[in-house]
């Protein structure tokens, strides 16, 4: 019965590791990902890109090939370019592949849809030429395309990683405008003990900083009042740093202040979420096997809380063990024994997290943006509009839809949801958990009538392109 024992959504580190571990336990696995190649965000198109430009992307990137190779197993079917837009009746997945809608069923589903960049609303952030730093990195990894004379704005290890990759590619950024402060660093020191247990990350961080220094990339720290100037496109970044107002002319402004779980799919099946104070975002609720309140649905990887690629891979395997046990392929004792070293690994992977999260917090200016700043990119709703809704009695994000059109555009709140929750919470003096988040209803990705009309019930052999 069904197309597979397990459907994994997302072929990033979490999904790939889960698929293999489940297959090794004797489960049949269908893995769906909207991208044309496996890898997820960190290892985007890793098989092709490593051969073409592995040297500039670094070993941490090319190492991802070990994971994509793990998909070569007779019990794993990988459907590439399959956009999942609905999960129904717990284990019935609707997706579109090459313009054709289809439904696949399984006994269990694992959500491994990863992270999104934290929205960074600031004046001018909707102008052409402004992208997420991750977008610039995707262009570099997947297409070998570099963004010239860019300014990187924000904070965090990923910002340094992207800067050093750009430097190695021979297209160094003009400058890094960093938002973390000395106070943030001082506060992070009390987590130094944990960080030292995760020393390889610290070492990598120091190496990247050294590389940027040697490359003479200018770093401005503690930046505030950041704005992007331009009329039809970005032309400059302005900010205050070190007591001075500065302006850097640039047509490419790349924003990044951390990543947050992509909770769209988990919310669409009503998995409860709670607010994580340290990471300033919502995370779906699950136990330490990835099991959620929705019986057949598990969740693993950055989509369940940010931990990075290695933690994601470990969590994927742990969820696979639990699913194999659920489906009588593994005794409880062997499940627990197999999970033990994975959990120890996870513990180590997470050790440096509190230090990193405290040293590189979200940019306060983007958490409470000025009134004129656009929050909902799709419907062009500003922070001031949302504050006015709060003054009229709007308590939660779903009510903003009644007051205006925030969150009703095609992105369905992916890049405004957290900001709206935050602004309403601040305005009403309520905790984010009380304010809540947009209710997400399927389809979570746009689907055309033609795609639905031609819906098929099965995976045909021609589609099994792996």
């Amino acid at each position: 019965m069904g197309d597979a024992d397990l459907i994994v959504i997302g072929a990033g580190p979490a999904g790939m590791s889960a698929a293999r571990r489940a297959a090794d336990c004797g489960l049949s696995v269908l893995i769906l990902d909207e991208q044309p190649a496996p890898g997820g965000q960190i290892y985007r198109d890793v098989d092709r890109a490593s051969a073409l430009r592995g040297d500039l992307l670094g070993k941490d990137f090319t190492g991802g090939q070990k994971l994509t190779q793990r998909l070569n197993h007779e019990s794993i079917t990988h459907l590439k370019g399959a956009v999942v837009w609905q999960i129904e009746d717990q284990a019935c997945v609707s997706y579109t592949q090459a313009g054709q809608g289809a439904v696949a069923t399984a006994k269990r589903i694992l959500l491994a849809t990863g992270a999104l960049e934290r929205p960074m609303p600031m004046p001018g952030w909707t102008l052409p030429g402004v992208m997420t730093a991750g977008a610039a990195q995707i262009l570099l990894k997947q297409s070998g395309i570099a963004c010239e004379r860019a300014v990187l704005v924000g904070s965090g290890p990923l910002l340094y990683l992207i800067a050093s990759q750009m430097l190695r590619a021979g297209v160094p950024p003009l400058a890094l405008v960093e938002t973390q402060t000395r106070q943030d660093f001082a506060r992070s020191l009390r987590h130094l003990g944990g960080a030292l247990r995760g020393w390889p990350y610290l070492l990598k961080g120091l190496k990247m900083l050294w590389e940027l220094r040697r490359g003479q990339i200018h770093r401005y720290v503690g930046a505030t009042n950041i704005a992007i100037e331009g009329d039809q496109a970005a032309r400059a970044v302005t900010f205050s740093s070190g007591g001075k107002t500065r302006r850097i002319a640039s047509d490419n402004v790349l924003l990044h202040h951390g990543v947050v779980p992509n909770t769209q799919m988990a919310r669409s099946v009503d998995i409860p979420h709670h607010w994580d104070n340290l990471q300033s975002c919502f995370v779906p609720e699950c136990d330490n096997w990835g099991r959620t309140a929705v019986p057949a649905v598990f969740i693993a990887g950055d989509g369940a809380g940010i931990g990075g690629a290695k933690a994601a891979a470990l969590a994927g395997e742990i969820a696979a063990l639990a699913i194999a046990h659920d489906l009588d392929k593994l005794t409880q004792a062997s499940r627990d024994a197999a999970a033990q070293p994975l959990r120890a690994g996870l513990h180590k992977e997470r050790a440096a997290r509190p230090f990193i999260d405290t040293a590189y917090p979200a940019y306060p200016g983007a958490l409470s943006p000025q009134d004129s700043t656009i929050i909902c990119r799709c419907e062009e709703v500003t922070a001031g509009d949302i504050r006015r809704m709060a003054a009229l009695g709007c308590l939660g994000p779903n009510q903003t839809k009644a007051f205006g059109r925030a969150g009703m555009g095609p992105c369905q709140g992916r890049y405004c949801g957290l900001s709206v929750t935050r602004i309403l919470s601040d305005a009403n003096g309520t905790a984010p958990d009380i304010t809540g988040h947009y209710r997400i209803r399927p389809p979570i990705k746009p689907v055309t009538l033609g795609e639905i009309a031609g819906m098929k019930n099965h995976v045909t052999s021609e589609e099994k392109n792996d």
Partner: protein
Amino acid sequence: MKPGSNFRELTPMPDTALVDVRFGTQALRLPLGENLAAALLVAGVMPFRRTPVSGAPRGPFCMMGACFDCLVKIDGVTRQACMLTVAEGLEIEMPAAKGDLDG
């Protein structure tokens, strides 16, 4: 890198076939199979669309199918350019924006 573009191909691959694509009235030659949003950026296309609310210009923001700022219209269907690849003969238009009749 084409004039007007801030995006440069680091290692252009000489054996990639170029195919004819139109963006509005612009005739382009783009690498077959390349990510469409990436190819349009290198070709200097900007903006990709104008918003339905104010008519403001927009271009790719996330390159991962999440923001919908890269929307273009192909064969009458509005789609995300960053989730498509270049194919021979694509006729691309800007989706309807504020002030357009077929809103």
